[in-house]
């Protein structure tokens, strides 16, 4: 059997029967309910907190109850568990009101009054950079920055350029909308704190919150409960729930539970970073690109958390699937008084990939060239250098993938037949995604371990920290082990991780689980197979990640091989716009992806479908405005994600391109699938209405503004 042949997902039946328990489905005896008290202003000082008379058993937990350090240790530790005197964004945690009766708790909560001394906030990228209201960070509101230059100095290239083209492209906030809202419980079992959470990264939570009580990570146990979607939104964010819950459990000695409502979750959780990318491109007199300069600015919000890494990935992807003789970029993470942004499928890459594709289309239109022919000439190849001046290690099969998409979509005929501005358009985008942590991060920072156990006279069990959040990893990982061991995958045990039982195999993030952790399980299974064949039973095998030699990376200068393997994608989208209502209808979507060798084609198919549709949502209907520090769209009736009626059945194809360091040749693919559809969609709409579009999202009212040449609501 080829590993790519689909099998029935291990988790599907219980989920479809409604038997799988998510956090809110559990009952914890004697658990207190809790409500988060949050800042209602974007910037200011807390003057007073007026509490109603609290009956016995009810208590407001604040920073004063923290015996250790008031910080959540994410990648940085600048985000406090509870605000002390200053508040920097709407939604910043001030306290956690806990008590036994849910309705009484709510009544008491509604009576709490916080008095502030308000200051002028900076909300947008421009306001943050201009230090509106006075800088609140580092004297310049810059959280982080980096610069990269490849090839000839770009200034020298500009001085001899025939023509220089500048363009600014912006993208907006995006909310994850995992169907299960954030939820966690903290309790004490046998004298140890135990956290149950809907989360991607149990080991992150432990590390992040232990310092609040002056404990070590090992002193706290985190158990992941079945997680109803995450998309990056449950990578670091669960720490924001689990920190206060841990302190509350410590203070009260009782289990404490927190389940967000939907509006609460949208209004008070991390988002995809809004971005502003400015290109400056040097052309010769024949319209050839001599070099490309860019400035990439991400709106980080009030705290840095993981955003420098997000910005880095954004910069590493700013030239997309192309290679130019000279490339330079500068990245800036700007501090604003908005809810901090954090991980979201693609982790900074989608913003710059949208920007480069849109810019390439713009250049082609200025030059009067066919956009596809124009872009094809610059597609990067094996051995060519990326913007970090390291080579692409693998064969790049974009041309073959393009042929598949052209054939399936009828792109050539349609792009000729649909005149610009005719109301019909077809667009196409190239994209990629560097798999796993950047450079040597897997060996220098993560150091993943996994264990494979052969229980005496019993089954094989996988022990690792990777979580199932819908992406299918519990099935994929069992398949990998089972295929090597030549046993049925359903006999392999792989439970939701419990940090006291499993080794730390790193976060379930960065499209690393299959290509990195999957490979560790693959290697462990090879070893186990040899020993079982030799008659051994009742033993365990542990494997540790080792970075292949010969692919250097310098994390201080960001120079070298950023990624050993990329996923690659080509996506075409066809739209038709109603000329009276400006309502767009997606008529077709065609894709081809290089994911190495798929572990399960049906699971991959689901990832492609979901990622592509989520990307179209980001570009089209998912308008999320921040007005005066408050998110304006906070429910699913005004934050509009795609429904089953919004996209037709899409075409899904692959090219096979086995990755030498992945299990059975597999590479990462979860994020890749998000990275291109927005650009293809906007290309199609842009052609259909005959306008250059520089900003997303473009809900129909914005499309209408473009059609009427109005600036109004953009």
């Amino acid at each position, binding site marked *: 059997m080829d590993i790519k042949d*689909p099998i*029935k*997902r291990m*988790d*599907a*039946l219980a*989920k*479809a*029967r*409604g*038997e*799988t*328990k*998510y956090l*809110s*489905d559990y009952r914890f005896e004697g658990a207190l309910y809790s409500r988060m008290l949050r800042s209602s202003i974007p910037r200011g000082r807390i003057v007073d907190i007026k509490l109603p008379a609290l009956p016995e058993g009810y208590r407001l937990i604040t920073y004063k109850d923290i015996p250790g350090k008031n910080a959540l240790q994410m990648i940085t530790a600048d985000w406090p568990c509870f605000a002390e005197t200053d508040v920097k964004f709407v939604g910043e945690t001030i306290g956690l009101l806990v008590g036994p009766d849910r309705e009484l708790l709510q009544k008491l909560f509604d009576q709490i009054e916080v008095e502030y001394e308000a200051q002028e906030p900076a909300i947008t990228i421009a306001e943050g950079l201009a230090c509106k209201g006075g800088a609140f960070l580092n004297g310049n509101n810059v959280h982080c920055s980096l610069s990269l230059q490849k090839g000839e100095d770009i200034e020298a290239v500009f001085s001899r350029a025939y023509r220089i083209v500048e363009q600014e492209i912006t993208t907006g906030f995006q909310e*994850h*909308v*995992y*169907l*299960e*809202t954030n939820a966690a419980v903290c309790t004490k079992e046998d004298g140890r704190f135990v956290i149950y959470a809907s989360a991607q990264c149990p080991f992150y939570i432990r590390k992040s919150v232990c310092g609040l009580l002056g404990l070590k990570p090992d002193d706290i146990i985190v158990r992941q409960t*079945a*997680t*109803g*979607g*995450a*998309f990056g939104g449950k990578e670091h964010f669960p720490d924001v729930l689990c920190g206060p819950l841990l302190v509350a459990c410590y203070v009260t000695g009782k289990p404490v539970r927190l389940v967000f*409502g*939907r*509006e609460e979750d949208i209004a008070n959780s991390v988002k995809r970073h809004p971005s502003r990318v400015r290109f400056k491109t040097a052309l010769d007199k024949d319209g050839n690109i001599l070099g490309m300069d860019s400035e990439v600015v991400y709106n980080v919000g009030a705290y840095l958390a993981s955003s420098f890494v997000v910005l880095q990935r954004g910069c590493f992807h700013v030239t997309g699937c192309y290679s130019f003789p000279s490339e330079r970029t500068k990245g800036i993470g700007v501090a604003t008084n908005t809810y901090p942004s954090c991980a979201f499928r693609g982790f900074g890459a989608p913003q710059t990939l949208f920007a480069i594709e849109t810019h390439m289309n713009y250049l082609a239109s200025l030059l009067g060239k066919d956009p596809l022919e124009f872009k094809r000439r610059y597609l990067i190849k094996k051995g060519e250098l990326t913007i970090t001046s390291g080579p692409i290690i693998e064969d790049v099969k974009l041309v073959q993938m393009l042929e598949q998409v052209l054939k399936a979509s009828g792109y050539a005929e349609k792009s000729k037949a649909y005149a610009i501005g005719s109301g019909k358009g077809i667009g196409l985008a190239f994209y990629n995604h560097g798999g796993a942590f950047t450079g040597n991060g897997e060996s220098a920072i993560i150091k993943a371990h996994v264990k494979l156990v052969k229980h005496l006279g019993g089954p094989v069990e996988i022990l690792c920290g990777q979580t199932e*959040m*819908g*992406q*299918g990893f519990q099935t994929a990982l069992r398949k990998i082990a089972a295929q090597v061991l030549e046993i049925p995958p359903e006999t392999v045990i792989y439970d939701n991780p419990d940090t006291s039982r499993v080794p730390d195999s790193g976060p379930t993030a960065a499209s690393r689980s299959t290509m990195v952790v999957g490979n560790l399980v693959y290697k462990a299974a090879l070893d186990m197979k040899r020993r079982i064949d030799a008659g051994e039973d009742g033993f365990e095998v542990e494997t540790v990640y080792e970075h292949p030699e010969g692919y250097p990376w310098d994390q201080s200068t960001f120079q070298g091989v950023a990624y050993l393997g990329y996923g690659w994608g080509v996506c075409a989208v066809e739209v038709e716009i109603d000329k009276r209502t400006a309502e767009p209808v997606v008529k077709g979507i065609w894709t081809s992806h290089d994911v190495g060798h798929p572990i399960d084609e*049906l*699971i991959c*198919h*689901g990832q*492609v*479908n*979901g*990622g*592509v*549709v*989520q990307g179209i949502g980001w570009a089209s209907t998912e308008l999320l405005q921040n007005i005066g520090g408050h998110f304006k769209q906070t*429910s*699913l*009736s005004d934050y509009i*994600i*795609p*429904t*089953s*009626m919004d*996209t037709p*059945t*899409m075409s899904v194809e692959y090219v096979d391109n086995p990755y030498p360091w992945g299990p059975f040749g597999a590479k990462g693919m979860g994020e890749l699938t998000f990275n291109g559809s927005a650009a293809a969609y906007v290309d199609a709409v842009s052609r259909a209405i005959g306008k250059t579009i520089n900003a997303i999202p473009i809900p129909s009212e914005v499309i209408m503004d473009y059609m009427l040449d109005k600036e109004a609501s953009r």
Partner: protein
Amino acid sequence: MKIDFNLNGVQVSVDKDPLSRLIDVLREDFGLTGTKEGCSEGECGACSVLLDGKLVTSCLVPLGSAIGSRVDTIEGIRDTKLGSIIIESFANGGAVQCGFCIPGMVISAYCLLSSNPHPTEDEVRLAISGNLCRCTGYDLIVSSILDASRRLA
């Protein structure tokens, strides 16, 4: 007040405020946690149940509306012939990812196929348009419902 209704084929009685949300009564009083709460405003469809055979979002239904009526939840339909065919098609067809929307999707599919056993793709898409899913992009849910329809024969 005392409220009597038929829950998954069994006559039940509960002493509650008639304005209690049906979803809370199902999940908390009867422990039927297969019905999920996704948005609390009738937008996402994760809490879908059948009220006298009609598809409703139980977060918006006051308990009083169920007096003398029949309520069917995922726990009630999953072992019926139609329910098990749908669930089997979902599991085989890649329709399930995180799973949080899926019980509601199964209820919607059950409601559709009960009245229209052989729908077109457009009819399937319309029938589940009140059920949001963020994982799948819907294609494999749609194809799984069509597969269930074929297996009904």
